[in-house]
């Protein structure tokens, strides 16, 4: 189910501005990988190249290779729509569809590409909401609008929506930055459960969070504003936080940065 990601020589551009330069890394299946680094170093940009969302931005362009198991996402003839079915995404701000009920939000991915059988949808919705630890809170109001939930619930709704289409990889861009500590813990626990089934990549500005949830941690940095961001190092989380091999990583983690 879960798949390995293998990135080599990746550059991403906004029109003529190169936002990230020459990134290579491997993400093993059924692991959680955290991306950390200062603001503007290209974490979000890199994350979005992993499911071809980068090219949705006007002027967005990518060079290099991203292998999902043995298929190149940027190979000729690859349909970005099918890539995004395999690699799901959760955004920084919860963004449930405002016109849809909680049920329809979770079912959206399936409904919008054709599965219409009610009993099948019911099963998927229940399973996904349970998977996102939201079922007990919303099972009595599945037909109410999703925007009526609290921020933390909305974010879990978005996670349920993302896992309902059974992706192989789940990308999360600062999924907890708009949430309170309790909702954050709920989502961190959830990540721990989800990694049994998915390959997870998470961007976070919260060092403790990276240390708590991830198996591997990648540190990104940029030489100066206007310069492209680079991958400084990627290693086991325990090692990054205790004994990193690059001085800049240690400086950043211990707050002696800049």
């Amino acid at each position, binding site marked *: 189910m879960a798949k390995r990601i293998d990135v080599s020589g990746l550059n991403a551009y906004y029109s003529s501005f190169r936002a990230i330069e020459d990134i290579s890394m491997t993400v093993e299946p059924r692991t959680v990988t955290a991306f950390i680094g200062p603001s503007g170093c290209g974490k979000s940009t890199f994350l979005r190249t992993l499911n071809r969302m980068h090219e949705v931005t006007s002027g967005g362009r990518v060079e290099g290779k991203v292998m999902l198991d043995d298929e190149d996402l940027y190979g000729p003839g690859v349909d970005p729509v099918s890539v*995004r079915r395999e690699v*799901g995404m959760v955004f920084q*701000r919860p963004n449930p569809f405002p016109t849809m009920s909680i049920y329809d939000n979770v079912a959206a991915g399936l409904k919008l590409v054709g599965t219409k059988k009610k009993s099948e949808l019911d099963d998927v919705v229940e399973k996904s909401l349970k998977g996102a630890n939201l079922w007990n809170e919303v099972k009595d109001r599945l037909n109410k609008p999703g925007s009526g939930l609290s921020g933390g619930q909305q974010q879990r709704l978005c996670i349920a929506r*993302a896992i309902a289409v059974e992706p192989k990889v789940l990308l999360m861009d600062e999924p907890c930055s708009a949430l309170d500590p309790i909702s954050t813990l709920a989502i961190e626990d959830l990540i721990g459960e989800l990694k049994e089934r998915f390959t997870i990549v998470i961007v976070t500005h919260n060092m403790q969070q990276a240390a708590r949830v991830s198996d591997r941690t990648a540190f990104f940095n940029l030489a100066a504003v206007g310069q492209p961001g680079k991958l400084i190092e990627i290693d086991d989380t325990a090692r990054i936080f205790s004994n990193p091999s690059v001085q800049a990583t240690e400086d950043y983690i211990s707050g002696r940065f800049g």
Partner: protein
Amino acid sequence: MSNATLSQKRPSTLRAASLPKWFGWAVAAGSVALGLGISTVAGLDSSIQWALIAGLLFIVGTFGIAARVEGKRQAKDRVATSLVWVAFLFAVIPLASLVYETVKRGVKVLDGYFLSHSMGVVATSEPGGGIYHAILGTLEQVGLAAAISVPVGVLTAIYLVEYGRGNLAKAVTFFVDVMTGIPSIVAGLFVLSTWILVLGMGPSGFAGAMALTILMLPVVVRSTEEMLKLVPNELREASLALGVPKWRTILKVVLPTAIGGITTGVMLAVARIAGETAPVLLLVWGSNYINANPFADPQASLPMYIYLQFQQSGGSGAAYDRAWAASLTLIAFIMILNLAARGIAHWKAPKSGR
């Protein structure tokens, strides 16, 4: 020393002298009375003149008294508020009196018979007859115009917002802007010169509908465009990231989110063209008979009916009454459309309640 004496010694900096609540009304009443008095003395007999004098007195009086009692800043605040009120009154009075006048004169002959009969066997100077043929014509012409311009307009707006990049999009935007400014008579002349003079077609409801389309299209494009731009990009990205193709994202996520506003825009555009007279006069010609076929022969329409009743009345009171009743019908029609638009916008608006 007690607290009371302390606070007497140091006057509060937060509380200041203030005028009572009825102050505004008192000044308004005073200035109306003064305005009337001045005009009688000066022998001005126009009600516009005394209203202007009263409005001026109201603002000056408010400022003068408030500045003396409450201080400069509060006085300015009061003047700004009263300016808004005066402007509001001057805007609302003509509107209210127009509706009042139309209702008063319109209800005289407006009844079931009037709505269900044509002018077929009634001379313009005689009483009787009705506007059935005109209502039918307006509904068909406006319906046809909407049937063409809503899909074309909405699709154009979708192209501009969701796909349009580069020069083509810029050119389309430019031409839409130009179209917005086309006077209705010019749109009518354009269709007249191509459809009727060059292609040799006769006058028909459809010819009028084409001119109305030219007028309606830019309004639909513009309003739909604005509504689509209001849909947050995050929703599009959320949908795309689920692996939903772009066209389905637009159809199932973007359009439903914006549908309330789009409907309002379309209804307003319909209301605008429903009252157009000039192109209809040129292209549909008008008729006293019921013609249910918009593709052949002259038809009537409500605005043109009103115009022709006035023009051909020959001083007959019956024709004037019919014109007023038709005006009332037209206003009611547009009012109902607006209410429907509000209803739909409210009903379709993204829900946020629990």
